[in-house]
């Protein structure tokens, strides 16, 4: 509206039209010719020269190189002005004749690519080195903890600490309204509310200017302020501000760069800036310029921090290696001890063994009689839970195994010792006749033994039979002087003897023993020998009759009257006489038919 008004107002007014006739005009022309002919000629000449001031192409061609050179030394305006044209021209050229461009840039393309690859690789190796260094160092551990504690990804923590500086955000703010025109944020950072930040930045700037009374124009305003680790750099232009949020220590060059960017924006966006009415759309185009300001500079190699951390890391690694070696050595020693024990153990054949760091595996043969291999392993200090053992059964003919097998098969008593000589098993120590007999019969069922040799063995009657025998033999039936009559106590005694004897017969026959009882009648020394022999015979007969009547088999009884021929002796003559008026008992136990007796 204003523009329209302006153009109307600015329209020139038409010149007043002459009122006189053509004649008058001619006369006036003549007069002018007379009075001003010299001046008119000079004027025409001047006009001609002025026309020539408009530069011809020829003149331009001559002056252009100088003009370009001159302007280039003054400022960068020429380059900036030409840049869009060149861009377009180059784009056009590439589109029309790509082949020619490709040929032209070929000599620089190869080295450029090589350089780019080399730099990428160097960067990668550097990153890898640092990653290894960081993950091994105490510092790395600290960062891990920090990442875990704050919930920020580890990579960002590393960047934060390795950062020299980083431009995190750049705001382009309209100076007059304090409204944001454009805003860029470094990648992987959260975008913040540009409106509020722009507003607050301006408010802070205004506040500072009001408070300190510094000039609004020029360099008097707020240039930087710090918030924690961040610094906000504010560059002021006539129509816009550029604010950069920087993390870390920025170099002075960054400020210059911001200034240059702001100048560039003023140059190219002067009109939109002046006409800004709240629509930030035209300033989208400034984003590439702002993004160029998002620099990130990380530490390269910092010698000061390099010294101690890797040393600590190496000590830790060294200690870990030594510990592993020690554990491995101990484990190996135990394993060897165990396998040696297994190899030397009768009845066990080790076929295959493999020792690993966390355990091992064993395969072999094992006689069922042999010692349990896991016992041997445990004794050697090997954890049997970590071992895979596979034992196949087999029959061993190792002497200890055969002996043990025989001992188990024959149910040998503890008192017996064995010794293997070839295929003959020699028995020593004491054993009963019945066990020896059973062992011989069982022999064929024991692999590895074909003969039993009892020549060194001490064979005996079983203990229970011997007890019964002595209990019977310690009894003696006494008689009155010159009498063979059995008094009532004697009858009871004979009944006891009969019971014991029947027990003996019964138990003995179960185990294959034969028993017999001999009754020996005696008399005291009074009377004749013949009388005494008959009397002693009668006494023995009487006892035998009673025993027989009590169930003792007749064929296992024998009576004998010996008179005074083999007297029982005593220090007291009277007692000796009483002891000899008696019938004594003698038990015989034999094994089998024709076996040895006692």
């Amino acid at each position, binding site marked *: 509206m204003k523009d329209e008004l302006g153009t109307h107002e600015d329209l020139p007014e038409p010149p007043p039209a002459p009122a006189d006739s053509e004649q008058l005009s001619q006369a006036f022309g003549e007069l002018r010719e007379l009075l001003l002919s010299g001046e008119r000629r000079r004027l025409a000449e001047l006009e001609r020269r002025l026309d020539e001031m408009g530069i011809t192409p020829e003149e331009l061609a001559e002056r252009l190189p100088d003009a370009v050179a001159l302007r280039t030394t003054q400022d960068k305006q020429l380059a900036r002005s030409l840049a869009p044209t060149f861009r377009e021209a180059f784009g056009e050229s590439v589109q029309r004749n790509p082949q020619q461009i490709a040929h032209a840039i070929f000599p620089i393309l190869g080295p450029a690519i090589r350089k780019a690859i080399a730099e990428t690789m160097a960067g990668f190796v550097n990153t890898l080195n640092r990653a290894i260094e960081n993950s091994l160092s105490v510092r790395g551990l600290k960062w891990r903890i920090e990442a875990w504690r704050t919930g920020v990804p580890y990579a960002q923590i590393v960047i934060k600490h390795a950062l020299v500086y980083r431009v995190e955000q750049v705001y382009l703010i309209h100076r*007059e*309204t*304090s*409204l944001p025109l454009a805003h860029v944020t470094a990648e992987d950072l959260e975008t913040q509310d540009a*409106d*509020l930040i722009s*507003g607050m930045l301006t*408010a802070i700037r205004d*506040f500072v200017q009001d408070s300190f009374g510094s000039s609004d124009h020029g360099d008097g305003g707020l240039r930087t302020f710090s918030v924690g680790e961040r610094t906000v750099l504010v560059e002021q232009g006539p129509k816009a501000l550029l604010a950069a949020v920087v993390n870390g220590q920025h170099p002075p060059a960054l400020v210059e760069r911001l200034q240059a960017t702001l100048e560039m924006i003023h140059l190219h966006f002067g009109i939109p800036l002046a006409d800004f009415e*709240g629509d930030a759309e035209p300033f989208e185009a400034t984003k590439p310029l702002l993004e160029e300001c998002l620099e990130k500079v990380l530490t390269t190699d910092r010698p000061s921090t390099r010294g101690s951390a890797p040393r600590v890391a190496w000590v830790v690694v060294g200690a870990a290696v030594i510990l592993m070696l020690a554990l491995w050595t101990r484990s190996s020693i135990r394993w060897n001890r165990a396998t040696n024990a297994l190899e030397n153990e009768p009845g066990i054949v080790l076929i295959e063994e493999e020792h690993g760091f966390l355990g091992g595996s064993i395969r072999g043969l094992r006689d069922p009689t042999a010692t349990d291999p896991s016992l041997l392993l445990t004794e050697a200090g090997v954890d049997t839970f970590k071992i895979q053992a596979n034992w196949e059964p087999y029959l061993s003919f190792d002497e200890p195994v055969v002996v043990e097998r025989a001992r188990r098969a024959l149910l040998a008593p503890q008192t017996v010792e064995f010794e293997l000589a070839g295929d003959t098993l020699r028995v020593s120590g004491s054993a009963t006749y019945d066990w020896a007999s059973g062992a011989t019969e069982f022999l064929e069922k024991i692999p590895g033994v074909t003969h039993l040799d009892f020549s060194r063995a001490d064979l005996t009657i079983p203990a229970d039979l011997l007890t019964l025998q002595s209990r019977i033999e310690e009894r003696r039936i006494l008689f009155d002087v010159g009498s063979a009559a059995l008094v009532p106590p004697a009858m009871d005694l004979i009944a006891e003897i009969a019971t014991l004897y029947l027990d003996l017969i019964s138990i003995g026959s179960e185990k294959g023993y034969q028993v017999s009882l001999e009754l020996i009648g005696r008399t005291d020394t009074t009377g004749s020998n013949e009388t005494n022999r008959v009397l002693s015979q009668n006494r023995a007969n009487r006892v035998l009759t009673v025993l027989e009547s009590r169930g003792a088999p007749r064929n296992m009884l024998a009576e004998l009257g010996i008179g005074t021929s083999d007297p029982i002796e005593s220090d007291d003559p009277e007692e000796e006489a009483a002891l000899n008026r008696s019938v004594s008992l003698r038990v015989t136990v034999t094994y089998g038919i024709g076996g040895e007796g006692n």
Partner: protein
Amino acid sequence: MIQKKICMVGVFGTGKTSLVQRFVHSMFTDKYHSTVGVKIDRKQVLLDGETVNLVLWDLAGREESEEIPTSYFRGSAGIFYVIDGTRRETFDQIFAIRESVQGTIGVVPSLVALNKKDLVDEWRLGQGDYNALMDADLHAIGTSAKSGEGVENAFLWIANATVNK
């Protein structure tokens, strides 16, 4: 997207912050918070199908004698004056404040919010006052940050005025 800076102006305790709170966050609190310096908030509104981003500068209320820091007004597309209808002096002072604003940034779309409308019994303004505002070319809207009455309406009016000036 169009952005507009709006300044909230008025004597202390008239309810500038409460109006912004109600408008932006749909909240109201009875507690009085004295604003220090300036608070900036933002609200997007839809006008004739176009989104307008209102950047609300909530300026600290001033005592009668104090001068308003005029630099905050710069670049404002509109001024939102706030009067406390229960305190006459807040009405009286609005004209002086307006002069100060216009002295700094010239004439921009302006609105007067007659706030605390919910306190009917304590209302101290009458028809004569409303006429005075009209004579001064100030559009007035009754508002209550507490009940929310008129708040949305007032902000939309100023937004509309700044866009279609």
